[in-house]
């Protein structure tokens, strides 16, 4: 759905490891560009992870999460092929959604 969110999952003992990479500048609003002009704040504030429309993880992020946020987390042994849905929203109201099948 979007190449700005990459999702990988892998079975492990008794569960599933999930890795989500969200391409985003995560500008703090404190930085200046090469010309010395302030760069406006632009950062993801929330990311949610649903499996088959059930919320499994809700992340709240601030300006001090590194550029291109990487989230890795663990789920219990949910069924293979369950629909994993990740969405984020940033401080400018932009949002992205991506889906993948659970490993």
């Amino acid at each position, binding site marked *: 759905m979007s190449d700005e969110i990459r999702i990988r999952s892998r079975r492990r003992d008794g*569960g599933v490891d999930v890795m989500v990479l969200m391409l985003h500048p995560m500008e703090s609003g404190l930085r200046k560009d090469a010309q010395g002009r302030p760069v406006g704040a632009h950062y993801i504030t929330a990311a949610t992870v649903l499996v088959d429309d059930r*919320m*499994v993880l809700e992340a*709240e992020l601030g300006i001090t999460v*590194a550029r291109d946020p990487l989230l890795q987390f663990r789920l219990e042994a949910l069924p293979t092929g369950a629909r994993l849905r990740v*969405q984020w929203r940033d401080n400018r109201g932009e*949002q992205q959604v991506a889906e993948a099948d659970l490993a």
Partner: protein
Amino acid sequence: MIDAKRRTLLKGSLGAGAVGVAVGAGLLTPRAVLANWPEAAFKAEDQSTALNDLLGSDTIEDSDKVKIKAPDIAENGAVVPVTVEGEVDGAKSISIFAAGNNTPLIASFEMSENSVPFVSTRIKMAKTADVVAVVQTPDGLLGAAKPVKVTIGGCGG
């Protein structure tokens, strides 16, 4: 209080009811969840205020059940990998702080019945300081700290 409200929202989205249908229909976001950003906690300039805003308490019990994996030395403060694991039952959330940052709260993760209290991400650190992890449990807040030496700070320039 804040937390109770947030839990309700989470619970509300667990049923395959109206919210589930709307989410399935496309870009319609569960706005109630995503719009819930705890601004005061993220803008707080000390950890205690951030904790009170976020979790309703700043009383943390040091616990070896909270494990932090982070480098001893981070050459680039703009990208510091941090992994937190809470070896406890019923963990409700994991929050990560960098004590030396102007705004210490970095991120907070709310668990569900299907998630295991284990999260990993990459953070920005302004200077050498403790990375602090706080795991919210039914019995209170458990915490641990791990010092990270930062060679080049990663927040301003």
